[in-house]
């Protein structure tokens, strides 16, 4: 009897907490398909706000995906070799470099953006293009890629695998391609999902770095909150959710899979 009471209490508590977090999101999305939010749901459901968002802001959506994918490419090209080198060296210098790479996590995005503006703001072509935002996103997401790849390198004995491939005659590039990258795949995948998700949702940095012609989805969202009617802004939230949720689900599915076959028996 007492066990069941405890269980019921825990269940109610969990549902309340979950509801506290989920209800606002659900309400916001519901507002996006409501004809008139102030008259409530009885005013009817409509997709007109979603259409309007698409007409006004579709460029920000495409730009956000472009930047997210470009950020992914940059972090893959820079992050995996960096993780490999840092793991193999594992001396004081490499640990210092690892700290420096991780630093953008601790620095507020605004400060990071300010630093980028101070340094590169003078190069006006660069400043005006989406590549400027890409630079910021790459700096901000790189530690996530490096960290998750290094975590896998720590779990499999990557140094010995590397030496094994070397003993068979493989040059560093072949080793990297044939042995290191395939065996780091779980970490690379996890890192990639994180980088894409972070880049899609990044606001702080991007808000400082954007120009009216290089708005991303979250910046457009802020813009619509500030200047559009509530239904449009809510419809925008809905669009954002529809795009980001599959990515989050993929991350969760992947995190479960990851505990399994990646660990190498020694």
């Amino acid at each position, binding site marked *: 009897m007492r066990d069941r009471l405890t269980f019921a209490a825990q269940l109610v508590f969990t549902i309340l907490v979950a509801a506290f977090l989920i209800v606002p999101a659900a309400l916001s999305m519901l507002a996006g398909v409501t004809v008139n939010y102030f008259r409530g749901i009885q005013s009817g459901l409509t997709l007109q706000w979603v259409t309007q968002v698409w007409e006004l802001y579709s460029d920000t959506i495409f730009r956000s995906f472009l930047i997210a994918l470009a950020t992914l490419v940059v972090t893959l090209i820079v992050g995996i070799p960096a993780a490999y080198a840092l793991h193999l060296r594992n001396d004081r210098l490499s640990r210092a470099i690892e700290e420096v790479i991780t630093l953008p996590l601790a620095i507020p995005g605004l400060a990071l953006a300010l630093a980028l503006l101070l340094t590169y703001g003078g190069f006006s072509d660069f400043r005006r293009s989406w590549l400027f935002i890409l630079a910021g996103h790459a700096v901000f997401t790189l530690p996530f890629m490096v960290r998750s790849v290094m975590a896998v390198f720590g779990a499999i004995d990557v140094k010995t695998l590397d030496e094994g491939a070397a003993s068979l*005659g493989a040059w560093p590039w072949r080793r990297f391609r044939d*042995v290191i990258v395939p065996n780091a795949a779980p970490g690379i995948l996890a890192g990639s999902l994180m980088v894409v998700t972070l880049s899609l949702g990044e606001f702080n940095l991007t808000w400082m770095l954007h120009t009216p012609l290089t708005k991303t989805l979250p910046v457009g969202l802020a813009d619509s909150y500030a200047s559009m009617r509530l239904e449009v802004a809510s419809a925008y939230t809905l669009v954002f959710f529809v795009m980001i949720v599959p990515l989050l689900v993929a991350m969760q599915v992947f995190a479960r899979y990851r505990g399994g076959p990646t660990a190498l028996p020694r």
Partner: protein
Amino acid sequence: MSPESSGNSNGHGVAVRLENCAKTFADGTQALGPVSLDVARGETVVLLGPSGCGKTTLLRIIAGLETPDAGGRVLFNRTDVSSVPIERRNVGMVFQSYALFPNMDVAENIGYGLKIRGVSRAERSARVAELVAVTGIEGLEHRRIDQLSGGQRQRVALARAVAVRPSVLLLDEPLTALDAALRDRLRGELDRLLRTLGITTVYVTHDQSEAMVLGDRIVVMRKGAIAQVGTPRDIYFAPTSRFVAEFIGAANIVEAAYSGGSLLLPGGTLAPAGGCDATLNGRVLVMIRPESIRLVPVDGAELRGHVETLSFVGDRQRAVISGVAAKPIMVDVPNSVALKIGDRIGLTVDPSAVRLLPGEPS
């Protein structure tokens, strides 16, 4: 079938020479003092020693995974390869953890070195099939590495190392990760395989019985230096130091007074064969293996003592006898002899089995 039956002229490998190879790591620890060693073409040399003696570092210097400190040189067939990276030394290496690639199946692992060398697919699969047969892992070709047992992994690692017809085969404690029974069986198989291949081999182990079975010569190492080099028989019967005597097999090492060509012990006297340095007088260290001491009637025996403990081992019994030397000595007694604790016994030792050791702080 010999995997070298195709008549590769490189089949028996190279002669390896190490000249003054020392290794000091970046943090200042010296893993290896200056070491020089010759390994003849086709010979199997075992580096034997306790952990931390520098044997793995020496192997890694031969492999090209470590570079020796300035002044050290590694030569393959008189060619200096000191600055040649491992991927160009054409070595075959078996790692303690095997280092098999989890992203490839067994056949792909074995064939990887050949693939790197640009060997055609058909030739590669023929060679892989040959090695799969030699190492007795038929039927496992398409298994993933994590689906293999320890013994199977060991065989795949060996097949992979040998597949490229290396100039020298390097094995770093390849049997250590296995359980005792499997280790014994694989040791025999490995011995047969190494003899069949006839390739220059350097084998690292801390297990003296592995070293005895596999080595044409054994290099006993201690604290980053070579303590003794010799055939298994040399090392066993004629150790040149107390460390080697104690590390290999069971040994009684006792202090004795030496005078007039005889060794005086509390339990009697012994005459070592061939005498020893005439200038030597006073206290000396003597080594006698337990199996070279025989039981004789007490009356007229060279040495006398009494049984302190007895342990029945199966094929023999080991008695600990006190009263002979300053500390109790071990004696192997045939399992048919009835002894009991406290018995007074006589002992005799073949003079050739008594070794004088140079004194050395223990």
